[in-house]
């Protein structure tokens, strides 16, 4: 029987489809195993880099490993701790705000004293040209958080100017900066509430 006749048979179709599916799955499974370790390494490096942006200064521990998970605003928050000589110098965690087009994921670094070391937006889907001014490449706005803490400005001033607060909004976009300001404010309140756990002060007392 030649190929032409074989191809007409109903069983050939099933075997062909099954064979292709099996073969491609096998290739994918193999490729997945071959790339898994490298992908994890690349993602860990990525995380470390995104943490390092909001964490100026020196620390001598592996911050991606020194974590604590706490219930924070909007679910569990993984907090990364940067230590210097075993003392927690700063913490980094993610906060999420509601923007004009869904969630705005930010990462913020907070010093031991509760001052903001830096805020960066990791992921957003805001309108290009309007809301995307929260990216440092487009506008310096995100740096306006640096050095701020609850008290400077006072808690009620943690809002955009349109809402009577201290932070600028953008022409044509209020919802986006409002979302970021609220997220950062919630992040600072979270820090104040969980301060002793975050700074691992219980552990220090043992020593």
């Amino acid at each position, binding site marked *: 029987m030649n*190929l032409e006749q074989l*191809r*007409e048979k109903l069983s*050939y*179709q099933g075997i*062909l*489809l099954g064979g*292709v*599916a099996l073969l*491609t799955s096998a*290739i*994918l499974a193999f*490729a*997945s195993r*071959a*790339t898994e370790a*490298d*992908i994890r390494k*690349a*993602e860990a*490096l*990525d995380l470390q880099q995104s943490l390092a942006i909001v964490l100026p200064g020196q620390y001598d521990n592996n911050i991606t490993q020194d974590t604590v998970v706490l219930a924070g605003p909007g679910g569990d928050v993984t907090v990364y701790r940067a230590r210097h000589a075993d003392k927690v110098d700063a913490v980094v965690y993610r906060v999420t705000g509601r923007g004009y087009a869904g969630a705005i994921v930010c990462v913020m670094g907070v010093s031991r004293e509760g001052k903001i070391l830096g805020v960066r937006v990791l992921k957003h889907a805001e*309108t*290009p*040209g*309007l809301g995307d001014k929260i990216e440092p*490449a487009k506008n310096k706005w995100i740096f306006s958080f640096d050095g701020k803490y609850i008290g400077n400005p006072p808690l009620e001033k943690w809002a955009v100017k349109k809402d009577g607060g201290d932070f600028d909004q953008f022409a044509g976009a209020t919802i986006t900066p409002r979302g970021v300001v609220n997220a950062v404010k919630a992040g600072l309140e979270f820090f104040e509430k969980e301060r002793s756990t975050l700074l691992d002060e219980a552990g220090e007392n043992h020593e």
Partner: protein
Amino acid sequence: MNEKYARISRDGLWDNNVVFVQMLALCPTLAVTSTATNALGMGLATTAVLVFSNIIIASIRHLVSPEVRIPVYIVLIATLVTLVDMSLNAWAHELYKVLGLFIALIVVNCAILGRAEAFASKNDMADSALDGLMMGIGFTLSLVIIGGVREIFGSGTLFANAHLLLGPAFAFLEITLVHDYKGFLLMILPPGGFMVVGLLLASKRVLDQRRAERATLATSETSAS
């Protein structure tokens, strides 16, 4: 023989261009062409997948029966895209961060299934590889032109952030055409994409028409003399 290759190349680049003639792959075209850099990235990734999918499908074209060809092609294309996705994620992570979103989109790029169906299933491997390459380059060029026009009018730059895609050596591509340009938002948003595609499509038609008129004029002149 050479004429055949020239024909395939001309088809891919101009006469049967994926975007402007076949009108395929308009979804990724409109979605990623807000800047020339994004357009280039999407074009290159698509070209790579297109070449490989054409080669593979041409190599097994005698084995695949017509009744089940579509699922077989789709599974093969999806596998190929996933392989590209995983290897970029593992070994070119910086590039992956820029292109990640587009790569998954390639599976639903009907231009790839279209070439598998219309060309690779009927021709040998060398021809199919060339067809994939030329269609891919044609697609890339169309995307870069659309992206370039949108970026120039929309944000006053050209190839912004190209170094993220191609490495620092290509930073020279980044041009700021208009300093302190406030931006023309419409061009960056989806409606701008539709407008630019429409205008470019019309210009191509006009060019083709002029060329055809000139050709008929030339033939009538030669037959008259």
